[in-house]
């Protein structure tokens, strides 16, 4: 089809059409949240969501703190130190499949393994632990894809110059695939901030400012889910759920910008 001129124009048309459709969907969804939530963005809601924001940032921070080194190092090992044998393919395959497990199952795993079995308390720490496991497959996959996109000959170039695999990693691989990893981090942040099912059993519903990771608390997403669950949770019912959703989007925006800023500074200095 691509070899006929009508085929080319058709594909071009479809490409533009898909983008227009995407833009409409994306702006409708974003617009819906802003319109529904803007009315409830008053000082009182901001004050009420300060503990939620803090809890959310704690979960994001600790989850990434665990998942990032674990995920990146695992991806490096899978891509560089293995010969892509059958075992490695099977492992990568099962990691991919874990991406599809519904987060409710991670939630139940957290409840019965961390709480019932190990005896941890319901706390922000437990929530962060389970979230680090939830985003682990995402980070491993994104980092591996990033390493794959580095030109093969750049890696061979460095190895050819007698650099060991290890120095190749630091000099060539990590600097070059930072952008891929950053995208993985952004997807992971999105997943952690928006997650409810995986953590609602283990994080409690307290809405006070937590003092330590051992305290309970609710993130923006779990509070929002609770309000939808029982609108009497907040004074103006479901409306404040939209308000919190807006604040949540704000946090996602700030976190994404922060990550990109860190990446930019790292590149300028590196």
């Amino acid at each position, binding site marked *: 089809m691509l070899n006929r001129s009508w085929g080319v124009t058709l594909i071009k048309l479809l490409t533009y059409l898909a983008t227009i459709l995407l833009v409409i969907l994306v702006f409708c969804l974003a617009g819906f949240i802003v319109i529904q939530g803007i009315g409830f963005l008053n000082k009182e809601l901001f004050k009420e969501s300060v503990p939620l924001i803090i809890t959310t940032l704690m979960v994001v921070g600790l989850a990434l703190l665990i998942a990032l080194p674990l995920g990146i190092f695992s991806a490096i090992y899978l891509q560089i130190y293995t010969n892509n044998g059958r075992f490695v393919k099977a492992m990568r395959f099962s*990691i991919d499949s874990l991406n599809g497990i519904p987060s409710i199952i991670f939630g139940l795993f957290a409840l019965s393994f961390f709480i019932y079995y190990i005896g941890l308390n319901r706390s922000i720490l437990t929530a962060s632990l389970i979230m680090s496991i939830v985003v682990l497959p995402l980070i491993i996959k994104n980092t591996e894809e990033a390493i794959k996109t580095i030109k093969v000959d750049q890696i061979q170039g460095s190895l050819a110059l007698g650099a060991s695999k*290890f120095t190749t990693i630091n000099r060539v691989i990590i600097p070059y695939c930072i952008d891929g990893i950053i995208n993985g981090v952004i997807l992971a942040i999105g997943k952690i901030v928006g997650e409810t099912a995986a953590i609602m059993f283990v994080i409690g519903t307290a809405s006070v400012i937590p003092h330590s990771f051992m305290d309970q608390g609710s993130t923006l997403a779990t509070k929002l889910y609770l309000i939808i669950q029982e609108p009497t949770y907040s004074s103006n019912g479901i409306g404040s759920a939209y308000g919190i959703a807006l604040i949540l989007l704000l946090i996602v925006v700030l976190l994404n910008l922060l990550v990109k800023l860190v990446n930019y500074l790292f590149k300028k200095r590196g």
Partner: protein
Amino acid sequence: MKKQVFFETLYKLSIIFASLLLLLIIIFIFLEGFPALREYGFIKMIFNGEWQPTAKNPSFGLLYMILSTVVSTILSLLISIPIGILSSVCLVRMVNAKIKNIIMFIVEILAGIPSVIVGFFVLKTVVSFLYDHFYYMVGVSGNSMLAAIFVLALMSLPTIITVCVNSLEAVDPMYTEASLGLGANKIQTIYKVELRAARSGIFAAIVLGAGRVIGETMAVMLVSGNAINLPKNLLEPTRTLTSNIATEMSYASGLHQNALYASGIILFIMIMIINIVLLVLLNKGGVDNA
């Protein structure tokens, strides 16, 4: 030299610890789900549609829900993959950088939206539209398979686009120049060469997108109506395996809870099948340059 040994053992430890963690979850699901499979029987569970977990002699038939998951996953991916890939191509190759950054900025945010809110968006728009136009039909409430497909497509689009755009941008410009040098026009260059070169990234996007669709609970439960029936037409309510786990797990106990974990095993197998299909397509498509 010592630093290198330390880091290389660290890499090894990381992959071992990571796979242990992930294995733990798989074992957990199989451990919890196995009693139901043994007692109620795997075959009976898969080929019987009757799900009455709390009845006197309970039946744990998952057939209708398996079909619902299969239908909703395939149809939603049939929407989100083409739109995702086509719009990623447009964003990377056909639109100036400023527009692309604005759209990507919002798409990245939408990847972070809690699915409950996307569920409410579709509930307030698609579901009420369907109800207003089909209310006269008995048993139609707007909450339907169609709405579930719409919400799943909406949920998976940001993931697919973010990964696709990332892999398209990483395509080596030498392919573009080679293709244009042979007299191919822009569209041919993109679709015949660049997509082929970025193939492994695009397949990663599809796998992540499929994972997001199969694993979605909160949004689907809001719009699908959650009634268990054979997916005959798009306007009837439906319940996917994942929604079933989410709705009933909080009150399930004993064999009922094991049956829910068993459906988790079935989900895991379905995800593996999708991955296998995608891997075969990836390799069958001839050459893999990475």
